[in-house]
């Protein structure tokens, strides 16, 4: 046994528990500020030929129908030949700041194949973006003069080239039918390199792009087909839409191989369908992206809207 130790009296200045409050306030406040600044992605500068309708803090940058950034500042380029627009990207849209992304301004546009950007009548113009395929990170971009025609980049089906003698009333956005079901649309057209024909580019939507095989036949289904015979008259048209904007239909022979045609394959566009072609009924499995039936509007998304 040892003798009990002499008790030592320590007078401590007690620190009241209340000092936890400013500590918590500091942590919460810092966290709020950090989280807010992390919500912002990088800033980019887009050069426009014409800044009509772009307003700071109002115009948004949209991708797939969602705002992914907003305009912070609109300024004239020092050389006075263009407008510089500073855009603050959202955090999850940081990947859009790559050199091969394309930007363009959307204004209301009304045409035969549909009305595009009608909402911009109310909201003012907006900037749309299409991401590239992983280019270098970039800060400055030059806007396209108008919306680009879609190219094969994502899961948007496949494009094919049709060679025709004449355009035959096909306009961009004209429908492409398979068994009178709309499966795609005409993207664009141009004269063949030595002017001996017209090249028309189509896009067939997924999953219907599987239906185009190397030996498929395409024909112009636009306009009306009027036959007057001994026993009466017959008027045929695929749809009112193809009557106005023209249209293309195709069929694939029974004897076809298993492989769908490659992206960008070239076909000949016939003026009208061979009777034989209309009888073809090959069994081709379609991997439906969504189960069930077509609902109105689902297949009819405006053809050139890149947000669709």
């Amino acid at each position, binding site marked *: 046994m040892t003798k009990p130790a002499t008790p030592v009296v320590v007078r401590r200045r007690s620190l009241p528990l209340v000092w936890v*409050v400013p500590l918590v306030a*500091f942590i919460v*406040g810092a966290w*709020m500020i950090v989280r807010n600044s992390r919500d912002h992605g990088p800033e980019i500068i887009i050069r426009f030929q014409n800044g009509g309708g772009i307003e700071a803090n109002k115009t948004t940058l949209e991708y797939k129908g969602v705002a992914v950034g907003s305009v912070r500042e609109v300024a004239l380029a020092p050389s006075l030949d263009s407008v510089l627009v500073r855009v603050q990207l959202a955090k999850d849209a940081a990947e859009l700041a790559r050199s091969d992304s394309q930007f363009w301004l959307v204004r209301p546009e009304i045409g035969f194949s549909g009305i595009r950007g009608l909402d911009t009548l109310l909201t003012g113009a907006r900037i749309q973006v299409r991401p590239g395929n992983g280019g270098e990170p970039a800060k400055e971009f030059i806007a396209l003069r108008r919306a680009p025609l879609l190219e094969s980049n994502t899961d948007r089906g496949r494009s094919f080239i049709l060679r025709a003698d004449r355009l035959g009333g096909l306009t961009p956005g004209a429908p492409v039918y398979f068994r009178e079901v709309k499966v795609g649309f005409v993207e664009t057209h141009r004269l063949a390199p030595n002017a001996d024909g017209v090249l028309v580019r189509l896009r067939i939507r997924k999953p219907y792009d599987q239906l185009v095989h190397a030996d498929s036949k395409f024909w112009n289904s636009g306009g009306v087909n009027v036959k007057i015979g001994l026993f009466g008259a017959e008027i045929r048209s695929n749809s009112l839409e193809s009557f106005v904007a023209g249209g293309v239909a195709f069929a694939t022979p029974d004897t076809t191989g298993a492989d769908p045609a490659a992206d960008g394959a070239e076909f000949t566009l016939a003026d009208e369908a061979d009777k034989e072609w209309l009888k073809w009924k090959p069994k081709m499995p379609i991997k439906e992206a969504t189960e069930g039936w077509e609902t109105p509007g689902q297949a009819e998304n405006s053809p050139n809207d890149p947000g669709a």
Partner: protein
Amino acid sequence: MDRTLHCHACQLTLPDAAPEYDGSPCPRCHATLHRRFPHALQRSAAFALAGLIMLVPANLLPVITSNLFGAAQTNTIMSGVLALYRDGLWGIALIVFVASIAVPLLKLVSLGLFFHAAWRGNSPHRRGLTRLYAFVRFIGRWSMLDVFLVAFLTGAVRFGTLASVHPEPGVIAFAAAVLLTVFATESFDSRLLWDEGANSDSAAP
């Protein structure tokens, strides 16, 4: 030293209490007696500091997003004041500025003056400071104007894509800042202004 002791629960006043009464039960209602609120200065200073910290995100972060015909606009308190002023509504801009920026700052400055005076003791301005304290307590309940405005607009303006209003995190920080300054004012003991001063709060039990 002032020997008066006042019970906060039953308002019994002991005109000449021995110092031992501090911290013991009230002879009438048995609530614990305190000559001064324990740790009043520290508690009040802690709340004031927390309020000051919260004012930073309250003013830096956006408080409101208003969406009119699809054109979204996000405002902090200050940018909202400037937007109102630019739109010619300078009267409303002034009200919002006074209620949301000037008053919280003046409250914190006043609290700082109280702490300084209570710490030093025997302030020559104690009469004026006491009046200022009463005013700061009164004004506290009016500082939530911004928060009410945002809450009201969020509930009232709900027209889908045509017009809508959403609160942003800054308004929470602002509400917290106002609440904390109210706590700071309430936990301060204005009698400290009249004491000898210097650490008078650390003499508590």
